[in-house]
Structure formats: C-alpha cells, structure tokens
C-alpha cells in the first residue's frame, strides 16, 4: 500500500526475491482470473505444515474466496498464487465455484444501485 507516500512521477516497482514453491509440472492457470472463486475441499491436515502456502490456502478458502483475495492474504504475487491454486485444483485440494452468468444483467445493475445507495 502506498498511501501517505508522496506521488512519484513513476513508481520504479519493487524487486522481488525468486519464489521457492514446489509445483509439479505446469498446471494450466488459464481458467483462473482475479475473480474466480475457489473453495477448499478439506481443512488443512497435520501433513500440510511443511507446505505453508498450501496450508494457508486451505484455511483461507474454507469459504469460497476469490483468487485475488487469496493471493493478497497469502502474500504471493498473482501469477504465483494462480499456479499454486491451479495445482491444488488438480490435486483436488481446492475446487472451483460457480456463480450465475458472468455478465451482469439489468437485474444485477438494479441490485447494484440499491446496494450502493444503502451504503
């Protein structure tokens, strides 16, 4: 978060340490976007503590949670989080959730108006 910092002309970005997270092969992340919601199929178990990111994801996704939120909460860059989440879907530790159609219809727009007005 950069609140409070003086506005620079351009943010040079931050250097990152390479990540050491074991993922077998290269699971396809193409079906995952920021708002894809996933949910844990099981609670974390005793064997999960050696893989803390996975353990955290199992805990954080006890209820359906967006990929963006999981990445932020677990402290991983999105692309890394997606790789891990895709791997955990393949291993059946996480599952994809579905919601109604992706395109908000007029009914949804009216709900948004009402919801925002009530804020």
């Amino acid at each position, binding site marked *: 978060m950069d609140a409070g910092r003086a506005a*620079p002309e351009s943010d040079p970005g931050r*250097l990152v340490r390479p990540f050491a997270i074991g993922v077998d092969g290269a699971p396809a992340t193409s079906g995952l976007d920021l708002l894809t919601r996933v949910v844990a199929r099981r*609670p974390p178990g005793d064997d999960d503590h050696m893989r803390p990111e996975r353990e955290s994801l199992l805990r954080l996704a*006890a209820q359906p949670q967006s990929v963006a939120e999981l990445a932020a909460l677990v402290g991983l860059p*999105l692309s890394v989080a997606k790789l891990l989440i895709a791997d955990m879907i393949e291993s059946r530790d996480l*599952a994809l*959730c579905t*919601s109604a159609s992706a395109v908000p219809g007029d009914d949804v727009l009216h709900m948004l108006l009402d919801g*925002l007005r009530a804020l």
Partner: protein
Amino acid sequence: MASADSDNVAPHSGAGSGAEPGGQIPLAVKILVAGGFGVGKTTMVGSVSEIAPLSTEEVMTEASMGVDDLGGVEDKSTTTVALDFGRITVNQQVVLYLFGTPGQGRFWFMWDELAEGALGAVVLADTRRLDTCFPAVDFFERRRIPFVVAVNRFEGAHDYGVEEVREAVDVSADVPILLADARDRQSSKSALLALVEHVMHRRSPAMSARPLP
C-alpha cells in the same frame, strides 16, 4: 486444470452464507479504479470497501514490459506492480469487487486482465496534473468500456469546473464527470453510482433512472 463441472463442491465447513451444498456463490461484479500515481485510487477503494483494502502484486517480467529478447529472462531483475482491491457485498446474490492499479503505459499488461469482464471504471483525475488520466481514458475508450471521470481536488491546485475538465480531458458529452473526494465515503459512493447509472444508460437510455445531462 480440472473442469468446472466435475469439480464444483460446497465448502467443507457448512457455516457462512450463500454456499450451502448445491447453492451458488454470489455473482462477482468488477469495477476498476484507474488513474495516475498518487491520485487517490487506494484511498477511494478503501473509503467504500467493507474490508480493509488488500494489496496484491503482479510480477512484471521483461516479457510483460514488451522486451522481445527472452533469453536469460530468469536472470533479469523482476519488479512488481501493486494491485489494490476492496469488496462490497451488495446482497446475497451480488458482490462488487473494486480494483485499483496504476494506469501507466508499462502496466497495461495487467489492465488487459483487469478489464476483462469489468462492468466499467472510475477514472480519477488529479487537479494538479490532469494529463495523468489521459492513458486510462484512452484505454477505456478504445475498449468501449464505460467509465466516469471523478476529479479529486488537491489543495493548492487549480479548481477546475466540470466543463473545464471535460474540455481538457476531451471525453464525449455523455461521459459523466464528477467533482469528488476519494477520502469521503459518500463521494466515492456517488462516483460508483454514477458509473452504474451510466452503464444502464448506455445499455438502454430508457432504462436509466434519470436522464444524463
């Protein structure tokens, strides 16, 4: 990846709303908050979000910065771009997610994914430097993504009027422009409402609650 159909399950813990076995999770609606550095994106996301704004990062590789030579890319330094987001539970069926990230040329690789499926955008304009919103305005215009312009007024900067901003930013007459304060919840809420009304108006002028000026 496993197919969506075979892998949909209810959460393992029965608690919580909207996720009973066989039930559907709420529809996720995405609104973007765009603008230059320091214009108030994080502030606006935070002022309306029901959760403290979260921040995640995307790794910016040489490839995503548009460098052709990928040889030895693993040795090159990698930087990140921050992405803030917040959430508003609208009702049991709809959750609104707000995403804010810099609208600067080299970050567009990120915006392509962000813009995918977005309902629209609030472009924040900075009265100290109106031109910092040009790239974002251009990005949304080209993709025909509905947007409104919210003008954050900073102390010591020239106090622009709406029409002055419209002329300077050169957006068409139907794009709503509001004077806003990202620190103020009601003001940020008004910007979001203006966007939703604008989206309705674009879909069907008769559907909008009130005619836009």
